[in-house]
């Protein structure tokens, strides 16, 4: 077991590299990425297609195992140079909420149950899970569609149900891969405002991959990737922008 975590950051990556394939077919999706994200922050990952944004997000979400480096989430080391925790699924259930462009709702459960399922898996009693699921759907303004099956929802409604599910267990880390791509700009703004509000209220870190220039103004920090390298980090918090280039 690696040593205690020497950082206060909620998400912490040091020298993370990931390649796919070997030899001729080798693709370096991430090269030596070091990044810290604090509670309450909304961070955007930007970069051209194939630059490694999704791979970075998946590495943080413990879906992709890096080849090298060190990753800690909320005070727990999850990866340290080839060593990987073996209770990643519990970690995902308790600490991480995923929001994806394809909403990944389970097609055979209605909206409430899609949300209630993750609460249920985390050991909440049935009634409480249902209650909280309905509360969350109401909060995201899809409460009226709670009995609908995912196939009957519009893109924006499904997206909001998926967000409700991502938030259900009050995760401290929310990972979103192009969360607003399916939404019109007005809805996209609403979703981003909501995520910002959550970050503040729940002391959560939000990391969102986006191509969408319209929502950049709503991010606290922008990390740009190119060919697997983190090439710049732009603070967006207050007043004039300060740009640091690595």
């Amino acid at each position: 077991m690696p040593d205690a975590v020497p950082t206060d950051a909620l998400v912490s990556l040091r020298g993370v590299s990931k390649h796919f394939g070997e030899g001729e077919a080798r693709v370096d999706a991430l090269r030596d990425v070091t990044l810290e994200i604090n509670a309450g922050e909304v961070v955007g990952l930007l970069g051209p297609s194939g630059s490694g944004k999704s791979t970075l997000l998946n590495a943080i979400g413990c879906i992709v195992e890096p080849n090298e480096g060190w990753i800690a989430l909320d005070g727990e080391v999850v990866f340290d140079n080839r060593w990987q925790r073996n209770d990643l699924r519990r970690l995902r259930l308790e600490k991480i909420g995923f929001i994806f462009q394809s909403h990944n709702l389970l097609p055979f459960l209605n909206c409430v149950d899609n949300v209630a399922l993750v609460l249920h898996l985390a050991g909440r009693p049935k009634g409480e899970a249902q209650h909280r699921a309905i509360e969350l759907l109401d909060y995201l303004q899809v409460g009226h569609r709670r009995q609908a099956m995912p196939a009957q929802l519009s893109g924006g409604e499904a997206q909001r149900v998926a967000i409700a599910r991502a938030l259900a267990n009050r995760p401290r880390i929310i990972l979103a891969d192009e969360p607003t791509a399916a939404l019109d700009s007005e809805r996209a703004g609403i979703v981003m405002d909501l995520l910002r509000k959550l970050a503040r209220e729940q002391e959560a870190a939000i990391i969102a991959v986006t191509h969408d220039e319209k929502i950049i103004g709503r991010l606290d920090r922008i990390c740009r990737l190119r060919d697997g390298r983190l090439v710049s980090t732009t603070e967006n918090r207050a007043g004039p922008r300060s740009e640091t280039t690595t």
Partner: protein
Amino acid sequence: MNLAFRDIRHKLGRFVLTCLGLSLLLGVVVTMAGIYRGQTADALALVRSIGADIWVVQADSHGPFAESSRIPGDTREMIARIGGVLEAGSITLQTVQIGRDGRRLRLQVVGFEPGRPGGPVNMVEGRPITRSHYEMIADRQTGLSLGDKVDFGRRAYTVVGLTQGSVTLSGDSVVYMTLKDAQDLQFDLTPPETRREFARGSQRTNTDIVNAVVARISPNIPAEAIAADVRRWKHLSVLSAGQQEAILVTTVIERARRQLGLFMGVLTVVSAVIIALIVYTMTMEKLREIATLKLIGAPDRTIIGLIVQQALLMGVVGFITGSTLVALARDRFPRRVVMDPGDLVILFGVVVVVCLLASALGVRVAVRVDPARALVG
């Protein structure tokens, strides 16, 4: 929240259709097993309906069912005099076709001596034969009812009693009449030349021929002792009831039985392969959902439960529906279908094991699914 059940409810029509298909397939397997049992039961039905302890037949013959056997009509008196024999009766057997309501009815005619062994022990309606001529007892399978008149040769016979379950090993219905009637009938049906011979005055010496003598023996005397006594007459041999049944099952229907058994085995394997394919396909179709479950942090137990429960439910519903269909349609089969509870239990066990093995195959794939797969388009 039971995911297996929810998923089925979501695609109910498809699940019902799959179960229906499977139930028809398993129904065929159940039917095969039933026909297999039915054939054995049919082979023994006639022997058992006569209910004799020993069968005295022509020397070196395994008659009267497996081989032909002809012995003199006075044999019965000799047998009856042997110590330990309680009662004995002569029987004749012949196959007759008669026309009835425009269709041909194939019958096994058993001639017996009323009041002596050889008559049916499985009567369910009517009365035994009391007159010495022109009365008969028929099996229900013939479709005849009490009081019906049936033409045999030049005579009409009245049905006075009905039996249940008397059939020959080829599935023909059995009717019983007095020995005398049966012998006359045999004569009536002999070729015209022979009859012409008799008409010219040659003696009917050979009409008092029977096919076997059946006897009931005292429970205190071993059948073997009596058999030894009988064998001293060189023209006779003796079969115990057990031997008679063994001959029928092991020699007469052996090939048919093996054929059916083989076919049943092949069908069971085919069903197993089909169940495995269905379960595997069901899993493969759910890979995205399985990946999503992993992504949101569901443990393997949840995913395994989903697959195994669906496979088992499908197998159990298919088996029960299939067996029920066969049970309902059983009487419409041209030959007897015996649903042996032991067979059903074994088949059910096979179905459950196959479902479990097939889901193990699916589970193997499912636990290896990369959660990242949920993210692909």
